[in-house]
C-alpha cells in the first residue's frame, strides 16, 4: 500500500549529514542567520509568550517563533547573534534549551510529500461532499432530465478531481505494472477507470446508475489512509532528526595559530583540531598535544577508558574525558572509521528488506482475486444478456464494491493508533512495518555498555574505606571532571563525608589528581600512577604518602528500567541474550545481576551480526537493542531493532525504533502493544473480507446500486477505523 511514498522518505545517515553541513556552510556567508533551538520543557501558552518575548528582546533578533507541537523555537537573527547566547538567555529565564543544527532540520521542515497528500485528500473530500449531495437527490427519486443533469454535474466535478487526486495511485500502479508486477493500487486504478467509463456511458444514455460518488469517495478514503500513514512516520522522523540535529557538526580547528570554529565538513587532512574534555572526536587523527583518557565505549563497547598521549591514533566518535587534546586529522568526512563502519551497515543484509508487510501479502492474493471476479462477471453477463452496457456496469459495480477501501485503512489506522500510544510512552516508531516485525519477536539480544548500563560508573565499595580515606578521596575527586571522580565525589557526599583540607591540588590529565595532605603527597588516579597493580575491574586508586594504595572499585550503573525490561521479556517467554564487546568478567557479572542466562563477551561487530544471523537461521525472530557503532551491523541484521536516544547517530539511523527517555522498561510493553496492533490489523482484514463476502454476490447478481456501494464502502471504512481506536 505504501510503496508509492516509501522511497522518497527513506532517511540515510550520509544524506542527512552532508547537506546539513553544506547548508551550515552557506549560512556562514549569508547575512541573516536562522537559528533553531530545541525547548524540551515548554508546555503552556505562558511559556510561548515568555520565550518569544525574551528572544525578541535580544538585539539583532528579527523574529522568534515557538512551535509548541515540535517544542522548538525558530529565530531569524542578524549574523552577530550566536546560538550559545540565546541558549544561556533562555536558561536564565528557566527554560532548558539546546541548539539544533538548522541544516539537518531543514530536511523535515518542508514536508512536500505530506502536503501534497493533504492537498489531494482535501480536493477529493470537497468533491465527495458535493457529488454526494447530488447523488442523494438522485437516490431519493430524481428522474429524467433532472437525474441526467445531476449526473452530468457530478461528472464535471468528479473527472477533474479524479485526475488530480488519484495521481499517487496511478503512479504507483504504473510503476508496478511496468516491472510486470501487481500491487494493491492496480485494482484501485482499474476500478476508478472502469467506474468513470461505465458512468459516463450510462449518463450519456440517460441511465439510472452512475458511480461518480463512489469513485470520488474511494479516492478520499484511500488518501485518508495514506495521509495518516505518512503523518505517523513524518512525526517519528522529525523527532528522530531532531535527535541528530542536537549534535551540531562543528569543530574547533587551529588555522594559522588562531582558533576557528567551523563545520566538520570543512575540515581537511592535516588540520590541527582542539578537542575539549567531554567533546567527541570529529575526525580520525593522531594526538599531537595533551594527555587525557578516551572513552571508546560507543565504538567498541569497552567500559574502561583508554589512556591517551601524543602519538596515539584516535578515531572519530571517541569521547575525550579529562584533558584538552590537540589532534592532527588523518582522515576526514566519509573516510573516517566512523563512516566506514556506518557503510558496513549498508552492506549487511537487512532483516527488514526480507520482510513482506501484512498489507503486501494480503494484496498478493487480493488483487488477482478481485480482477478475476470482475472479468468473470463481465464475461458471464455478456454471454447471458449479450448486452455490453449491462455487463460493463456490473463489472464496474463488482470492482467498486470489492475495492480495498477498508483494506487501505486497515493498516494505517491501527499503526497510527499504536505509534501514537508508544510515542507517549517515549518510543519513536521510524519504520512502517516495525510494529508488525516487533510483534513476531521471540528472542531479544541486548548490548551491554550504554544500553543495559547507563555508561556512568557507580562506586561499589564505599563501606570498605575509612572516613579518613574517604575525606581525602573526596577532596581529590572534586578537583577533576573525570566520570570516576564525579561518581566518587557524589557517593562520598551522599554518605555525609566532608572533604579533607588538601593543598596544591592539581589534575594531571590522563593520570589523576594529586595534592598535599598534612604534608604528605596524596594521589587519586590510575593504578600505574599511584604505584598499584591494576586489576580487572574499573577502579581509581588512592595513594596516601607511602601507604599501600587502596582501590575504589566501580561498576557500570544499570539504566533505569533495565532489570524490569529483562524480567518482563523473560516472563513473556522471550529468550534474552547479552552480547557485548566488553571483557568476559564484566559481562558475566552483569548477566548474573540481571538474570540473563546466555551471554557472549569480547564480540567484534561482525561476530555480533553473525550471532544474530545464526539465531535467525534457527528460525528465531530477533530484536536487537544496542547503541554503539559496534552494534550497527547487528542492528541492521536483526529482524527489528531498538536504540536509545543516547546512541550514536549511525546506530539510531540503523534501528527501527528509538527510545526517547533513558528508561528501558517500555521495551516489554512495546512488544505487547505490537502484538495487539497486529491482532487488530488482522481483525480489520477480516472485517473488510466479511463485507466483501456479503456485498460481492449482490454485485455479481446485478442488484448493486450506487447507494449500496456507497453504504458498503463507508460503513466498512468506519468499522475498520473504530476497531483501530479500540487498541489499548
Amino acid at each position, binding site marked *: 500500500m505504501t510503496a508509492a511514498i516509501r522511497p522518497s522518505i527513506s532517511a540515510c545517515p550520509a544524506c542527512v549529514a552532508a547537506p546539513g553541513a553544506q547548508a551550515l556552510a552557506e549560512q556562514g556567508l549569508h547575512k541573516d542567520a536562522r537559528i533553531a533551538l530545541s525547548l524540551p520543557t515548554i508546555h*503552556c501558552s505562558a511559556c510561548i509568550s515568555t520565550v518569544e518575548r525574551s528572544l525578541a528582546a535580544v538585539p539583532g533578533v528579527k523574529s522568534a517563533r515557538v*512551535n509548541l507541537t515540535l517544542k522548538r523555537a525558530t529565530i531569524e537573527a542578524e549574523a552577530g547573534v550566536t546560538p550559545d547566547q540565546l541558549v544561556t538567555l533562555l536558561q536564565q529565564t528557566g527554560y532548558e534549551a539546546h541548539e539544533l543544527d538548522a541544516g539537518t532540520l531543514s530536511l523535515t521542515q518542508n514536508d512536500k510529500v505530506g502536503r501534497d497528500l493533504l492537498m489531494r485528500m*482535501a480536493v477529493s473530500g*470537497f468533491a465527495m461532499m458535493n457529488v454526494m449531495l447530488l447523488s442523494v437527490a438522485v437516490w431519493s427519486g430524481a428522474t429524467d432530465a433532472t437525474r441526467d443533469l445531476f449526473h452530468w454535474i457530478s461528472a464535471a*466535478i468528479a473527472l477533474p478531481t479524479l485526475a488530480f487526486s488519484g495521481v499517487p495511485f496511478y503512479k504507483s500502479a504504473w510503476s508496478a505494472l511496468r516491472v510486470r508486477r501487481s500491487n494493491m493500487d492496480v485494482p484501485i486504478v482499474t476500478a476508478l477507470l472502469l467506474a468513470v467509463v461505465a458512468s459516463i456511458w450510462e449518463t450519456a444514455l440517460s441511465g439510472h446508475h452512475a458511480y461518480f460518488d463512489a469513485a470520488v469517495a474511494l479516492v478520499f478514503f484511500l488518501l485518508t489512509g495514506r495521509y495518516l500513514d505518512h503523518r505517523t512516520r513524518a512525526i517519528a522522523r522529525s523527532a528522530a532528526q531532531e535527535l541528530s540535529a542536537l549534535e551540531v557538526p562543528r569543530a574547533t580547528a587551529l588555522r594559522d595559530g588562531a582558533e576557528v570554529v567551523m563545520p566538520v565538513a570543512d575540515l581537511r587532512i592535516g588540520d590541527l583540531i582542539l578537542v575539549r574534555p567531554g567533546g567527541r572526536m570529529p575526525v580520525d587523527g593522531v594526538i599531537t598535544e595533551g594527555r587525557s583518557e578516551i572513552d571508546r565505549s560507543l565504538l567498541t563497547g569497552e567500559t574502561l577508558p583508554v589512556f591517551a598521549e601524543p602519538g596515539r591514533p584516535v578515531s572519530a566518535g571517541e569521547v575525550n574525558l579529562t584533558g584538552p587534546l590537540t589532534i592532527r586529522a588523518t582522515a576526514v568526512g566519509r573516510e573516517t572509521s566512523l563512516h566506514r563502519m556506518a557503510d558496513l551497515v549498508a552492506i549487511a543484509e537487512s532483516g527488514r528488506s526480507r520482510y513482506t508487510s501484512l498489507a503486501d501479502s494480503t494484496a498478493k492474493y487480493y488483487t488477482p482475486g478481485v480482477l478475476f471476479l470482475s472479468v468473470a462477471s463481465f464475461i458471464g453477463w455478456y454471454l447471458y444478456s449479450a448486452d455490453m452496457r449491462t455487463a460493463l456496469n456490473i463489472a464496474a459495480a463488482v470492482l467498486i464494491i470489492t475495492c480495498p477501501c477498508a483494506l487501505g485503512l486497515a493498516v494505517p489506522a491501527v499503526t497510527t493508533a499504536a505509534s501514537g500510544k508508544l510515542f507517549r510512552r517515549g518510543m519513536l516508531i521510524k519504520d512502517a512495518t516495525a510494529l508488525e516485525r516487533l510483534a513476531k519477536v521471540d528472542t531479544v539480544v541486548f548490548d551491554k555498555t550504554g544500553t543495559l548500563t547507563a555508561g556512568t560508573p557507580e562506586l561499589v565499595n564505599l563501606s570498605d574505606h575509612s572516613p579518613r580515606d574517604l575525606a581525602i578521596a573526596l577532596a581529590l575527586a572534586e578537583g577533576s571532571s573525570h566520570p570516576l571522580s564525579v561518581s566518587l565525589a557524589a557517593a562520598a557526599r551522599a554518605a555525609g563525608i566532608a572533604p579533607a583540607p588538601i593543598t596544591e591540588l592539581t589534575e594531571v590529565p590522563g593520570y589523576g589528581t594529586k595534592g598535599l595532605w598534612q604534608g604528605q603527597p596524596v594521589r587519586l588516579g590510575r593504578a600505574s600512577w599511584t604505584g598499584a597493580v591494576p586489576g580487572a575491574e574499573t577502579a581509581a586508586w588512592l595513594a596516601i604518602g607511602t601507604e599501600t594504595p587502596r582501590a575504589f572499585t566501580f561498576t557500570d550503573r544499570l539504566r533505569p528500567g533495565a532489570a524490569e525490561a529483562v524480567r518482563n521479556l523473560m516472563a513473556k517467554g522471550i529468550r534474552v541474550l547479552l552480547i557485548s564487546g566488553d571483557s568476559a568478567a564484566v559481562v558475566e557479572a552483569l548477566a548474573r545481576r540481571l538474570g540473563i542466562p546466555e551471554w557472549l563477551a569480547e564480540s567484534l561487530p561482525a561476530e555480533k551480526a553473525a550471532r544474530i544471523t545464526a539465531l535467525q537461521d534457527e528460525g528465531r525472530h530477533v530484536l536487537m537493542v544496542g547503541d554503539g557503532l559496534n552494534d550497527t551491523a547487528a542492528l541492521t541484521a536483526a529482524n527489528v531493532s531498538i536504540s536509545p536516544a543516547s546512541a550514536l547517530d549511525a546506530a539510531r539511523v540503523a534501528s527501527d525504533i528509538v527510545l526517547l527517555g533513558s528508561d528501558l522498561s517500555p521495551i516489554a510493553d512495546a512488544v505487547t502493544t505490537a502484538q495487539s496492533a497486529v491482532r487488530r490489523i488482522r481483525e480489520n482484514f477480516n472485517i473488510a473480507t466479511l463485507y466483501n463476502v456479503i456485498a460481492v454476490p449482490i454485485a455479481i447478481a446485478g442488484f448493486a446500486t450506487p447507494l449500496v456501494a456507497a453504504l458498503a464502502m463507508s460503513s466498512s471504512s468506519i468499522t475498520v477505523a473504530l476497531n483501530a481506536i479500540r487498541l489499548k
Partner: protein
Amino acid sequence: MEVLSYLIPISLLLGGVGLVAFIYTVRTNQYDDPEGDARRILNDDWDDHPKP
C-alpha cells in the same frame, strides 16, 4: 424546479470557497503547530492593540 438553477451554482460556489480557503491554510503553514495555535488563542499579548 427552476430553483435548481440557483441552488446548484450556489452549492458549487460554496464548496469551491471552502476548498480555496483550505488550500490557502495549507499554503501558509497553518497546520504546522496545531498545539501551539490552540494555546495562542488564550494569550492576551495583543488584546489591546494589534501586533505592530
